[in-house]
């Protein structure tokens, strides 16, 4: 029994922006952050311990536990944890060899899909990421007392199609509708409001715990273009910790002998690194030895690592065909950019002071939140993204024929015609790949499908048009059509990294089992949202069609709205549901009259046709 909403074309209001909020999420390798922007004010969400920076680790005991609590469970030996799962996003079993040894847990091949082994369970990276996202979503819901259903999630600029799809699937599992995936550097630029800054080229230097990324962005008239990206997926603050731990061990002459001791030493090293960002010297106690560490000692250890990042910056500029002098500004992202030597080296390289007044751990989430608000409420700026890696299909001899080239702006649709190589061939295998290399083996396999029903013709006669469409999130759909018969097939590129649709659905069901703890909170929130939506819709309808309402009827409806408001303010779900029912019943005759009126006017005029004729004229202009 819901109220009919009627809108003129082009005047559809935004979908209840006030009932459910859209969030921005930085789903990071070592930690994740969630933020909300309302009325252009960004709030970084804190958990019940007051932390906004949530370690991207999940402990799998009875139910998944995320963040600092997971780390604690691990320390107490209660559960094993999964960390750095972002490195595995979009990887398939074929990649196990490439990543083996880098991950502190076992990986298995489950009929082509890559899974992580943890205790008795095996999980896909997507499922683990979904657990992190679910935790962040609950944090936000608790903080704002509203349903959180929509999100902008950031991904590294170099993420390929499979990794982006995996990220989107993880969001879906966590009950989040992804408004847009945006590149991390672009999010950082948004956080600094660079869309209002002078036009020009900006460099985003992102040194996190485990990865380093450099991106060159061009900004013009509120528009962001990614020009080039570079970096090192295995270089970050953790490497500095390791180097320092080794140094302390050497200085003290006491090497760690157990895993627990190594753990402890690494924690000491991290502490030293952080305090030396503020002080010149510090003193540490390690296995009964006392070691003095000066900032100069640490800097000598860090310099080779930082030099590598600076070289990557120079390379990224070269890729974009630019010189250092073309760069208007530099943005620092990632906790490791708090290190004075990093700041100094970056500023020397680019010859100007860097932007670093926003917390470098939160800046990406802040930008994502701004974009989430922009996509639900509207904004002046526009993000124009590009395809990070070329997309193509396999042709005879294992060659990769590119259909969409890297750095093509998205959304984009491109076609290429192919033909059969044998007489009477009635089917064609379409193997979709991504990468810059010429040979399919060196590219990343995204999907396989077969176009059947090609009419048996001599070789080279059949004409098969393959169309690639990449949407604004950078996600690919491929279709193939035989032009003589019109036989057509379409796939959304997805399966290669291992998740089938039915598998996602099973996982969605499974995820319900773990939601028990929050189910009551959730049901209350849902009821409140539903109730507020009804009030909102009804009041909008009354405003628009007041002539269809008798004064007595209006008085009754107003009274019921007031009762419902009381119920909402008391947080009583049963009462809210009952009042919703009553209000819907009493306003039903009004809804009927509005529907009759709408049908009447639809029969008279044709706004839509008029409107579309206009669009066509515009397209011809």
């Amino acid at each position, binding site marked *: 029994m819901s109220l009919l909403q009627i809108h003129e074309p082009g005047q559809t209001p935004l979908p209840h922006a006030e009932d459910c909020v859209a969030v921005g999420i930085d789903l990071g390798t070592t930690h994740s952050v969630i933020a909300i922007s309302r009325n252009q004010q960004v709030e970084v969400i804190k958990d019940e311990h007051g932390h906004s920076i949530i370690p991207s680790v999940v402990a799998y005991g009875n139910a998944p536990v995320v963040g600092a609590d997971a780390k604690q469970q691990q320390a107490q030996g209660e559960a094993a944890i999964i960390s750095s799962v972002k490195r595995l996003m979009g990887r398939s079993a074929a990649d196990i060899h490439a990543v083996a040894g880098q991950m502190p847990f076992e990986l298995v091949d489950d009929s082509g899909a890559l899974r992580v082994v943890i205790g008795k369970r095996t999980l896909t990276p997507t499922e683990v990421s979904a657990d992190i996202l679910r935790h962040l979503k609950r944090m936000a819901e608790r903080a704002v007392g509203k349903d959180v259903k929509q999100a902008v999630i950031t991904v590294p600029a170099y993420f390929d199609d499979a990794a982006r799809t995996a990220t989107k699937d993880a969001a879906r599992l966590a009950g989040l509708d992804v408004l847009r995936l945006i590149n991390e550097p672009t999010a950082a630029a948004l956080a600094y409001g660079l869309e209002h800054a002078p036009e020009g080229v900006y460099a985003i230097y992102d040194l996190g715990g485990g990865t380093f990324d450099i991106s060159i962005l061009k900004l013009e008239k509120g*528009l962001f273009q990614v020009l080039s990206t570079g970096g090192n997926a295995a270089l970050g603050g953790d490497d500095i910790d390791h180097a320092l731990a080794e140094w302390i061990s050497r200085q003290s002459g006491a090497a760690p002998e157990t895993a627990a001791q190594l753990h402890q030493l690494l924690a000491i090293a991290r502490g030293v690194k952080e305090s030396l960002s503020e002080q010149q010297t510090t003193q540490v106690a390690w296995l009964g030895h006392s070691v003095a560490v000066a900032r100069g000692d640490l800097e000598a250890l860090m310099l080779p690592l930082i030099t590598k990042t600076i070289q990557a910056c120079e390379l990224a500029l070269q890729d974009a065909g630019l010189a250092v002098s073309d760069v208007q500004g530099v943005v620092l992202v990632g906790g490791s950019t708090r290190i004075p030597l990093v700041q100094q080296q970056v500023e020397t390289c680019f010859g100007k002071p860097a932007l670093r007044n926003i917390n470098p751990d939160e800046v990406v989430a802040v930008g994502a939140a701004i974009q989430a608000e922009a996509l639900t409420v509207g904004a002046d700026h526009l993000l124009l993204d590009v395809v990070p890696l070329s997309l193509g299909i396999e042709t005879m001899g294992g060659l990769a024929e590119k259909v969409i080239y890297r750095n093509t702006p998205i*959304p984009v649709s*491109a076609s290429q015609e192919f033909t059969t190589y044998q007489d009477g061939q009635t089917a064609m295998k379409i193997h979709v790949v991504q990468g810059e290399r010429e040979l399919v083996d060196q590219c990343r396999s995204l999907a396989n499908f077969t176009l059947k029903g090609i009419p048996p013709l001599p070789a080279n006669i059949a004409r098969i048009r393959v169309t690639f469409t990449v*949407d604004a999130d950078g996600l690919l759909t491929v279709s193939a059509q035989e032009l003589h018969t019109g036989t057509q097939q379409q796939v959304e590129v997805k399966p290669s990294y291992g998740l089938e649709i039915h598998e996602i659905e099973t996982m969605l069901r499974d995820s319900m089992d773990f939601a028990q703890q929050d189910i009551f909170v959730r049901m209350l929130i849902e009821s409140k949202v539903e109730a507020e939506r009804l009030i909102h819709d009804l009041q909008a309808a009354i405003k628009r069609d007041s002539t269809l309402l008798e004064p007595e009827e209006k008085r009754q409806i107003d009274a019921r709205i007031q009762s419902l408001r009381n119920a909402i303010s008391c947080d009583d779900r049963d009462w809210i549901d009952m009042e919703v029912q009553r209000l819907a019943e009493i306003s039903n005759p009004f809804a009927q009259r509005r529907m009759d009126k709408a049908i009447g006017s639809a029969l008279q005029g044709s706004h839509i046709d008029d409107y579309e004729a206009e669009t*066509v004229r515009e397209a011809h202009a």
Partner: protein
Amino acid sequence: MKKAAAAAVKASTYSVMSNYFAVLGIEPTYELDESVLQRAYIAVQQQCHPDRQVGKPESERHAAILRSMDANEAYDVLKSPLGRAQQMLALQGIWVNGEGPDQKKPDQALLMEMMELRESLSEAKDEPEIAKVRQEIQEHMKACDAVLADAFRAGDYERAAQIAMRFRYLGKSLEEAMARQYQLKAAL
């Protein structure tokens, strides 16, 4: 009713696909200023990009996204001199892009020139030799650009067509030369 209308929009988009200048609302010209192109492109995207369709009805959104894709394609084609030349010729019904039927045939002299170029590429033994061939190709291409501008200004489409084909072949040879150069460098 809605569905039919959406299809009509799509079909009409296809018919204008052959005119990338029109997609971006700019006068067809070979000598196109980059900033003019960029401005026109951004103006269309400000209206039509998927991110700008928040809360709009489905039919409108769909039409806008198609137009956003067209604009991306048009921008991509028109920002290169060869793309512009091919587009200018297509407007005259002359096809020299190497795809689809009705392609104009290159003349004998052009074919001979390209065969010789390919030979000198395959005969080059080391990196400096390839670099030399590569530089020659780049100089030829620069000259093509100037001749094309002249031909279009004079409305001499036959001449423009031959030069555009030469331009395209040279571009392919340049790619080949660069790939070989890279190979030889990597082998060092």
